[in-house]
């Protein structure tokens, strides 16, 4: 017997109140990160002996800058979701859980903004 109300079925959010959004976005970012990681590693391994101006010129090109921003955004989003699950799994006191979740969220946002600002400063 189904005890759920019609509005609950339509919303489809379940008992955790957030539905499948978290696990879905983890997969969406994962799929995007496969080609982005390959591009990133293939690019940086060619610049291990390059000087400052060579690396800067590389990042200043629109293709590099756009891909790097996409890599940062997808990567940090993916990181935030992954770290969030670890906290949910192992931390069981309410205060500590909220504190760590906020630390992870703010940390990821700060890193994302710092990275995007740096890329734009070089590329624009």
């Amino acid at each position: 017997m189904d005890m759920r109300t019609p509005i609950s079925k339509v919303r489809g959010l379940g008992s955790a109140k957030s539905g499948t959004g978290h696990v879905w976005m983890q997969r969406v970012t994962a799929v995007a990160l496969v080609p982005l990681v390959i591009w990133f590693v293939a690019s940086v391994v060619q610049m291990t002996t390059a000087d400052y101006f060579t690396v800067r010129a590389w990042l200043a090109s629109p293709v590099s800058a756009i891909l790097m921003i996409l890599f940062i955004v997808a990567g940090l989003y993916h990181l935030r979701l992954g770290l969030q699950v670890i906290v949910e799994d192992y931390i069981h006191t309410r205060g500590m859980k909220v504190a760590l979740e906020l630390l992870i969220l703010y940390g990821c946002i700060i890193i994302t903004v710092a990275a995007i600002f740096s890329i734009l400063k070089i590329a624009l």
Partner: protein
Amino acid sequence: MAITKRPTSPHLQIYKWGGHMLLSILHRATGVALGAGTLLLVWWLVALATGPDDYALFQTYMRSIVGKIVLLGFTAALMLHLCNGIRHLFWDKGLGLDVETTQRTNILVFLGMIILTLLSWAIGYGLVQGV
């Protein structure tokens, strides 16, 4: 909060060890390690945006022995998480979930990590020119 003595589910020490279990633990561990590695990535980008002096400092740290060990660990963690992550996407599709296939893909994931890490460092060290 009241402490209740409820029965707990079996934990790590109960299960027989296997490649799948090791990879499951390593997937999470490398995920956390890559989070720390992200700090290096943003340091690299900020140094690049700041100027040649800051970039030279970053390069000095990365070219030290400790820096190289950290970067090698970063590369290996990235490749393991990438290979095992791709396997997770197949699992999400319901593919390769049986024991035999999982045991075979365990080896594939480890081999993939080793080959991709060695390949990256071979190119990075100029042993192989370009890609």
